[in-house]
């Protein structure tokens, strides 16, 4: 099977949104997401004759992007599970963070704080505590709905390893959120989404907003697998570049990444 340039361009445009959000979620870096997405198209264009049709064009594009990002991602230290606590402390000591965020909040059309958007933001940060292969497999499967076979192609590994990464990554994330997230566990240590709701959207009742989310309504069932699936549903519904609170959340993500870079440098 051959791929011509107009078809490649059309396929790229269809995959571009998912590709860019995936890169953002694995790098936590808006500029890198933009650059890698662009570089992916350039490399695909240059190597279009190498496309044999063994996988879908979308899978091939994700594999190219993954290849571009891989070495850089491997060179980065993994984040700790309590990234939220560390970044909250840093934000409380940094007057610029709230000043910038409040300006975005008041002036941007994409800065209306929503709890569900913070859930997605939170998962992006916490999933960086997983070993890299587990994080990538989990994102590709649970959020971008690739099959294990496709993920193996994207990550240049085999299906058995992908199954292992998915099983271990999913299990670890379920435990972390079960322990930390106050939305699903009354004893959970982290209330940041409702706290930030009070700062950026004080007219919105946090509890009323929270119960609109299926994951919160089903929390009492204590079914970790089900609650994780619902968390992933929230992830799937949100495009971090086009969502109603995108600019505010991207500002938070940029702040968290810089805090983590400093934190891990010292550690």
């Amino acid at each position, binding site marked *: 099977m051959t791929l011509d340039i107009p078809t490649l361009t059309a396929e790229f445009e269809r995959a571009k949104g998912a590709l860019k959000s995936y890169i953002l979620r694995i790098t936590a870096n808006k500029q890198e997401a933009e650059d890698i997405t662009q570089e992916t198209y350039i490399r695909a264009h240059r190597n279009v004759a190498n496309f044999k049709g063994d996988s879908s064009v979308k899978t091939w594009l994700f594999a190219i992007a993954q290849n571009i990002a891989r070495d850089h991602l491997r060179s980065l230290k993994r984040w700790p599970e309590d990234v939220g606590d560390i970044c909250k402390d840093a934000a409380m000591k940094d007057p610029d963070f709230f000043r910038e965020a409040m300006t975005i909040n008041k002036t941007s059309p994409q800065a209306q704080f929503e709890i569900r958007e913070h859930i997605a933001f939170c998962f992006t940060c916490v999933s960086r505590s997983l070993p890299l292969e587990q994080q990538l497999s989990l994102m590709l499967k649970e959020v971008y709905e690739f099959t294990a076979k496709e993920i193996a192609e994207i990550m240049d590994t*085999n299906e*058995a390893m992908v199954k*292992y990464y998915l*099983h*271990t990554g999913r*299990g670890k994330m379920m435990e972390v959120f079960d322990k930390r997230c106050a939305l699903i566990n009354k004893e959970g240590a982290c209330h940041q989404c409702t706290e930030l709701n009070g700062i950026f959207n004080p007219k919105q009742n946090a509890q009323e907003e929270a119960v609109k989310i299926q994951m919160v309504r089903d929390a009492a069932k204590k079914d970790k697998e089900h609650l994780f699936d619902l968390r992933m549903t929230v992830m799937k519904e949100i495009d971090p570049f086009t969502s109603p609170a995108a600019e505010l959340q991207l500002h938070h993500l940029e702040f968290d990444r810089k805090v983590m870079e400093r934190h891990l440098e010292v550690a």
Partner: protein
Amino acid sequence: MKPLIATLLIMTILKTAAQDSQATTVKTTFHRETSVSTIIKADPAIIWALLTNASDYPRWNSTVTSIQGNIALGEKIVLKSTLDAKRSFKVKEFEPTKRLAWGDGKGLRTYTLRNNGDGTVTFSMTERIGGLMFPMYAKYIPSFDASFNAFAADLKKEAELIQSKSR
């Protein structure tokens, strides 16, 4: 007919025993060797991943408290288990999806995977300890049998669980 039924029964018993054998220990004056094997319905790569991801052991293996270090050829690992409070080993053999061995001055533990070609793998684990001084400390070393049985059962359960997941 009776001898035929008896023969079939014996063959079935032998086959079951071969699939999931209990740990056995052979002792001599200067050595002790404990072995266990089990049939696992999983891809060898899954079993290999479980055997070589050090930090993941405590999650699935009830006999391991922690393993520090990188399980790769020539690397040093520190194992804390239900048998030993702390013991250091060097990884001496590392043949992906086939054979792994680590050891110290006293002994060598070897894991082997044999792909049966029918979707199953025969997993075997052997630890041989000993040497000239072995008679002096042999009585202080606890039996490994129960721990080996638990290790093999845990590995089988976890690998088959991962294999069975369609997600």
